[in-house]
């Protein structure tokens, strides 16, 4: 199965939108008005866009701390995201959650969590509910390579396989967990797909910077899951451009846990540019059209962020709302 031209154009627009959104947030974050630790997803957009692009109405998405890409790819509102980062009452979580606790339930983006591994089990639980009800809905969990070091991950693999749950586990393997490289966290030669297969899951590894590859893989996997094959693990190899948390490049902060040359190699494989190049090659889009799309998104996003900043803070008298 391959994405047709229309689909690829759509995926490109989503990629471009998210890249612009995150780039804008990076810029605004530096003003120190968004007081919530934020893990930017620049460089990894193709994973969220490719997978969410293949989902259907009724499917549900959970994710981890690096959550903006998935929130936006799934249709979460940018104004509500920016408001949340500014701590405003118009935030998607009304200023209670911050960057790592987003929700856009109406779009199928149920929730994100700052605790590694949590949402892998939660997604399996939603899949269990779908299975009990005989529905063909699928639950998706996005997470990083470090979640594959948590015990809860393996408990979930085991359980999902026993019950043949309709759950898609998407690992964005960006090689690092904060400043720890894979070499100190996983034995040499570790193949995460092999681990998943050992538990009885189907597993596949794709280039996470190639939106078409991610989309095609997700399309096929989702079809199989809906047909009842059970849980699947999808590893997407990718790279985070910015520091683990915050808006800067590591080299700007003098960090040495990874080399600038490595970053530049990965930047040359930019998922947005790659998709654009492919579309231009087949003359599905022109450079001018790309520039216009970017300009339109830019204007839209700038306006939404400016509006978010003008919103009221939540009222302190409202502190106790939603405890129960």
């Amino acid at each position, binding site marked *: 199965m391959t994405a047709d031209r229309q689909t690829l154009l759509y995926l490109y627009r989503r990629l471009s939108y998210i890249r612009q959104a995150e780039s804008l947030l990076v810029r605004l974050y530096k003003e120190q008005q968004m007081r919530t630790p934020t893990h930017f997803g620049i460089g990894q957009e193709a994973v969220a866009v490719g997978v969410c692009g293949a989902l259907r109405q009724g499917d*549900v998405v*959970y994710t981890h701390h690096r959550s903006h890409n998935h929130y936006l790819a799934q249709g979460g509102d940018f104004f509500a995201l920016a408001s949340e980062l500014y701590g405003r009452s118009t*935030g*998607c*979580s*009304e*200023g*209670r*959650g911050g960057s790592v*606790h987003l*929700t856009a*339930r109406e779009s199928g983006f*149920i*929730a994100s*969590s700052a*605790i590694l591994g*949590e*949402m*892998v*089990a*939660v*997604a*399996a*639980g*939603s*899949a*269990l*509910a*779908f299975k*009990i009800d005989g529905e063909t809905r699928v*639950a998706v969990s996005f997470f990083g390579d470090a979640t594959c070091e948590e*015990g*809860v991950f393996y*408990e*979930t693999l*085991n*359980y999902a396989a*026993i019950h043949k749950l309709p759950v898609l586990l998407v690992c964005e393997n960006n090689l690092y967990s904060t400043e720890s490289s894979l070499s100190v966290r996983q034995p040499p030669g570790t193949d995460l797909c092999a681990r998943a297969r050992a538990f009885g899951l189907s597993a596949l590894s794709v280039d996470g910077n190639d939106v078409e590859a991610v989309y095609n893989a997700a399309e096929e996997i989702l079809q199989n899951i809906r047909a009842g094959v059970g849980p699947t693990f999808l590893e997407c190899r990718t790279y985070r451009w910015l520091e683990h948390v915050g808006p800067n490049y590591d080299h700007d902060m003098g960090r040495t846990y990874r080399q600038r040359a490595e970053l530049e190699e990965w930047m040359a494989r930019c998922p947005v540019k790659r998709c654009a190049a492919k579309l231009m090659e087949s003359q599905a889009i022109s450079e001018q059209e790309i520039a216009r799309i970017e300009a339109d998104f830019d204007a839209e996003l700038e306006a939404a962020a400016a509006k978010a900043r003008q919103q009221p803070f939540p009222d302190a008298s409202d502190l106790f*709302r*939603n*405890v*129960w």
Partner: protein
Amino acid sequence: MSERNLTYREALSEGLVQAMERDDSIFVTGIAVDYSSGIFGTTSEALRRFGPKRVFDAPAMENALAGIAIGAAAMGKRPVVVHPRADFAFLAMDQLVNLAAKWKYMFAGRAGSLPLVVRAVIGRGWGQGATHSQSLQSIFAHFPGIAVVMPASPGDAKGLTAAALAADHPTVILEYRTLYESTGPVAEDYYREEIGRARTVRIGKDVTIVAASQLVLEAIAAAKTLADMGIDAEIVDPRSIRPLDESAILASVRKTGRLIVADTSWSLCGFASEIAALAAERAFAQLRAPVRRITLPDCPAPVSYKLEEAFYPGAADIVNAAASFFGMAEGKETASNKLVGEFKGPY
């Protein structure tokens, strides 16, 4: 409503079955829920009536299972996760505390609510020892967003189970092992007891005994002895640790001026200390004596029967504490309730 006597375990079972009849979204899972032993028989009838689609075993995976319950609840299910020993729930704490308790708040209610129930068995049985007997009420109740109930009577076991299964927040039900065979009147029809409402088990004027779970029975036994000594004890069963019925406790303390708190766990940072603090802060003027806490000795639970006898507090400790308020000699022998002696293994 007609009443009849049921055991605590029959009442738990009936509460569960009646709730499951009314609500298809309820399912029960956890280690051993579909064994013939059925968690002291509390899940057997549900399995017989509703089958393995709604009552099913789980691997030993407490952490992920809690998350799975959360994910199912987020989709509209009402999962009941049973821990045959509460100690196993330590492995589920991340999901329960970091996620379930905060779900509604940190997503501003927009990610929905989590109507999930955790049942966990606590307390003394037969040499359960250090890691198979702990009472986790103060640990769970510490965190806003999670309800913790400790039914002491069959009537409350049924009514609080039904209430937990109708609530739209996570609820932990802690069931004391030796209570399963205790009996009491239980209404036949479906009913709910309000979570967060204490029950005054005995009205008295001289001393307030706030007792949790199995210690309510010990307090009742103690009150009989105290009555013979001319001391009129009032017993307040909080039933729910969070939310806590502060006003019922305070009203009693203000009336009697004396407070004993009996809890199934340790003192430090525990429920008994919480109630003592409540009295000190809000009923200080009416207190006529220092508050006494009857709790576990400050060591892990031992196994040997002889050591267990020394370890677990009972009616005699409550009597002695009350007697000391009135300058009477301690050391009075008091018949503890008989349930511990009748408990049969292997659990």
